[in-house]
């Protein structure tokens, strides 16, 4: 299909027109952001308190495992999401000198998004979840999110089409990148097969699922919490300090390098795991190289204040913005640091990561939101801010709250990481073999976190009061402005040929294509690709020297053509993900696993696994023993790729508030698990795990089990042929076996209860088969070492040829 970007001229006469901006939707999103922000942070303080006071897990729907996803989703999608939309709607109309494309779409977007948030607030505490971080919402809500996002996109691009400003300002580039990338990430990571209205299985399993999930999860941070807020920074910071951005040229380098590099960094969430090392290394390198664009953007923001530093003392808006940009710099320094494998060996699964994300979320996102709202409210209501001293107090209590929170988490994370990784001199025994010793050591720091978080929450409540009083003293108004209507044929007239068959794109994509060839081609051909890439680069440099004007003209035209700009941005963000994901998705099949294949779950174990996912156990327990000596000493042999190949979804986790469970099966008798789930402190003194009394009375879901097994078969899990009756009978039969074993320890239980299914699942963890050696695996290395050296794990993990 050929797409023609050329628009039919609408008018050729320049004329003046008075337009009224749709500021009502901006006000709506702003209030929604503040209210949901307070709710999300209140839940945050509650879950932080639950970690210190397990008694606060009052009921099943108020337990940590169910509330923690509510906290993260509320803060990301409800607080920052609504704030982003407020900023985008306000600035896009001004930058385009046009009212939003459609008032109806604006309304649908606002109310649809709020409905999604309410649905999440109801379903997550009920235990309806997909079991993947920041992607927990169930499939009907996923569809609603995708549809509402499309409504937002149509409305946004419609505004670009009818704009009266020829050039697309840098803030709009960031919005474009946000819209298309979030759509791509969200759709790919949420592809699932439903088993009921409230449950589905993702189509990816194990390592594939891990890679896709963190491609999504990392880039949710990048393209939901960063790029739109950078767009907001590029618009509102110059407005607040009344001078243009420090360097527009720097913003060009900032934008393109950020959107291109960010997308590759996802695997840094999976360092030292069974993810192939080349992917880990790519994740690490691209994370490190993110320092450059991130700090370029930060400096561009800070230096915009040149000659106006006095405003920092007097204007709370500028205070919030500059502190936010400073936190952006700090957290984008810390992120790459944590992506270094050696550092990650200490920090991963610990509170250090929690401190890092909160310096970004509270510092960068939260303070940007506050600055934005203090700037917007007086203008949206035609009045002055109710109380500047109260805004200043909000600023200082937030700063102290963040610092207390982040410092406490740094100390907690590093301390626990060091304790967990500590061994004797010979490296044969752990210094702290009892996990709870390390938990007890960090409890004071966890208490400081509660204080820091509460201080930040108080600041948010003060802001609500201050802005509410401001709004009451004025009147809601929509700004009107006289604009010059531009000639439509002078913009958006760049066709496919002019976009893609131009020298800059040809050389850029050609060079990258050859580099990718170097990446994947067999020996000999890879060197040829590299040589060709270098020759290409030389030709490109010569072309730039001779056709400098032509290249400049092409880019200037691109800035006046939204569709080609959007497509090129899409190419930039899609490339990294494709290169990382496609090989893993194609090769990761059972027949290619080197030495171990996970045993298929029985129907009862599958039901137990769904309970594990539903209760959010992955929020505190990982199922991934890393290729590190302390992990192996503590939990057993390191995890292989093939050992989670039938896990839909994967449950590798990202935080160990409790120990890893990858080899939990068979470690304890059934009665231990029974007592542990009834009252964790009866078996593990000092544990902060919630009790799960409802599992002992609730029945596991037998009704949907046949459908679940059918979906598993559809996904390629080799279940034997069973009809619905056989599936249920098999489940109950295994339940009776467990109940009989429990009887030996004088425990009475019913075979159809959730606890029995959960015990069945926990006892299956770590069970695998050793596949027969096929021709293609004959050259694989001998059996792996039980305790690998930290530097050479791949020697034992070579995969064999794929078809």
């Amino acid at each position, binding site marked *: 299909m050929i797409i023609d970007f050329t628009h039919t001229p609408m008018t050729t006469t320049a004329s003046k027109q008075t337009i009224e901006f749709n500021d009502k939707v901006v006000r709506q999103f702003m209030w929604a952001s503040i209210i949901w922000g307070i709710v999300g942070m209140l839940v945050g303080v509650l879950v932080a308190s639950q970690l210190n006071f397990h008694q606060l897990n009052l009921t099943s729907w108020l337990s940590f495992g169910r509330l923690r996803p509510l906290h993260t989703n509320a803060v990301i999608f409800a607080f920052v999401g609504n704030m982003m939309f407020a900023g985008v709607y306000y*600035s896009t109309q*001004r*930058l385009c000198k046009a009212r939003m494309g459609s008032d109806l779409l604006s309304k649908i977007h606002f109310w649809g998004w709020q409905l999604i948030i309410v649905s999440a607030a109801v379903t997550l505490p009920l235990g309806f979840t997909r079991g993947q971080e920041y992607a927990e919402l169930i499939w009907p809500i996923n569809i609603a999110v995708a549809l509402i996002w499309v409504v937002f996109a149509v409305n946004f691009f419609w505004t670009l089409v009818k704009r009266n400003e020829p*050039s697309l*300002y840098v*803030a709009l580039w960031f919005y474009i990148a946000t819209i298309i990338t979030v759509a791509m990430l969200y759709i790919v990571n949420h592809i699932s097969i439903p088993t009921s209205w409230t449950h589905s299985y993702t189509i990816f399993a194990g390592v594939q699922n891990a890679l896709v999930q963190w491609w999504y999860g990392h880039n949710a941070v990048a393209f939901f919490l960063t790029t739109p807020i950078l767009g907001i920074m*590029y618009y509102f910071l*110059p*407005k607040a300090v*009344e*001078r*243009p*951005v420090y360097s*527009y*040229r*720097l913003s*060009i*380098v900032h934008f*393109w*390098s950020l959107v*291109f*590099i960010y997308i*590759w960094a996802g695997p840094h969430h999976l360092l030292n795991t069974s993810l*192939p*090392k*080349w992917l880990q*290394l*790519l994740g690490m*390198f*691209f994370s490190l*190289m993110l320092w450059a664009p991130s700090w370029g953007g930060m400096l561009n923001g800070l230096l915009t204040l040149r000659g106006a530093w006095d405003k920092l003392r007097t204007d709370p808006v500028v205070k919030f913005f500059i502190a936010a940009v400073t936190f952006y710099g700090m957290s984008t320094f810390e992120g790459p640091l944590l992506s270094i494998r050696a550092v990650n060996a200490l920090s991963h699964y610990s509170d250090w990561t929690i401190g890092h994300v909160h310096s970004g979320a509270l510092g960068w996102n939260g303070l940007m939101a506050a600055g934005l709202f203090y700037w917007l409210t007086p203008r949206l209501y035609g009045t002055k801010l109710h109380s500047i001293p109260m805004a200043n107090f909000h600023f200082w209590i937030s700063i102290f709250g963040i610092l207390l929170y982040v410092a406490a988490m740094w100390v907690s994370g590093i301390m626990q990481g060091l304790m967990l990784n500590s061994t004797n001199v010979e490296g044969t025994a752990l210094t702290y073999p009892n996990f709870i010793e390390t938990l007890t050591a960090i409890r004071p720091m966890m208490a400081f976190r509660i204080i820091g978080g509460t201080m930040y929450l108080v600041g948010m409540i003060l802001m609500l009061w201050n802005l509410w009083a401001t709004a009451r003293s004025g009147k809601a108004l929509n700004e009107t402005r006289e604009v010059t209507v531009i000639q439509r044929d002078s913009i958006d007239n760049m066709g496919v040929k002019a976009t893609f068959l131009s020298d*800059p794109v040809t050389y*850029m994509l050609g*060079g*990258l294509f050859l*580099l990718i060839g*170097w990446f994947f081609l*067999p020996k000999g051909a890879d060197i040829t690709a590299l040589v060709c*890439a270098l020759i290409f*680069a030389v030709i490109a440099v010569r072309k*730039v020297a001779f056709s*400098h004007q032509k*290249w*400049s003209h092409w*880019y*200037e035209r691109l*800035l006046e053509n939204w569709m080609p700009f959007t497509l090129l941005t899409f190419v930039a963000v899609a490339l990294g993900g494709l290169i990382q994901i*496609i*090989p*893993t998705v*194609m*090769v*990761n099949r059972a027949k*290619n696993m080197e030495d171990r294949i996970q045993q298929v779950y029985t129907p009862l174990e599958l039901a137990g696994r769904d309970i594990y996912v539903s209760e959010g156990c992955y929020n505190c327990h990982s199922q991934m023993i890393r290729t590190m000596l302390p992990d192996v000493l503590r939990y057993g042999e390191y995890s292989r*790729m093939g050992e989670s190949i039938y896990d839909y979804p994967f449950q590798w986790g990202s935080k160990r508030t409790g120990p890893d469970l990858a080899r939990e099966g068979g470690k304890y008798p059934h009665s231990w698990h029974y007592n542990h789930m009834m009252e964790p402190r009866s078996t593990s003194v000092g544990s902060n795990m919630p009790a799960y009394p409802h599992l002992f009375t609730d029945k596991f879901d037998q009704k949907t089990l046949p459908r679940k097994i059918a979906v598993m078969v559809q996904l390629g899990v080799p279940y034997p042929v069973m009809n619905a009756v056989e599936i249920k009978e098999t489940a109950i039969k295994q339940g009776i076996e467990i109940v009989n074993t429990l009887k030996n320890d004088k425990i009475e239980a019913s075979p159809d209860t959730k606890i029995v299914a959960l015990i069945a699942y926990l006892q299956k963890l770590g069970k695998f088969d050793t596949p027969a050696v096929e021709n293609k695996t004959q050259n694989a290395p001998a059996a792996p070492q039980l305790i690998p050296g930290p530097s050479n794990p*791949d020697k034992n993990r*070579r*995969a064999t*040829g*794929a078809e």
Partner: protein
Amino acid sequence: MYKQVIYETWLEWVPYVAFGITAAVFITFVIRAVSLRKEKADSLARIPLDD
């Protein structure tokens, strides 16, 4: 199409690939940014302030 999912020699080539790709992107857009006319850059930077 793809022969392996785990490469034993990853340390020998992945860093160069990562560096090469990033350098290509950086150089391209630095050239692009530097060659933008000053007047054009200034006028673009003032768009938010043109109220």
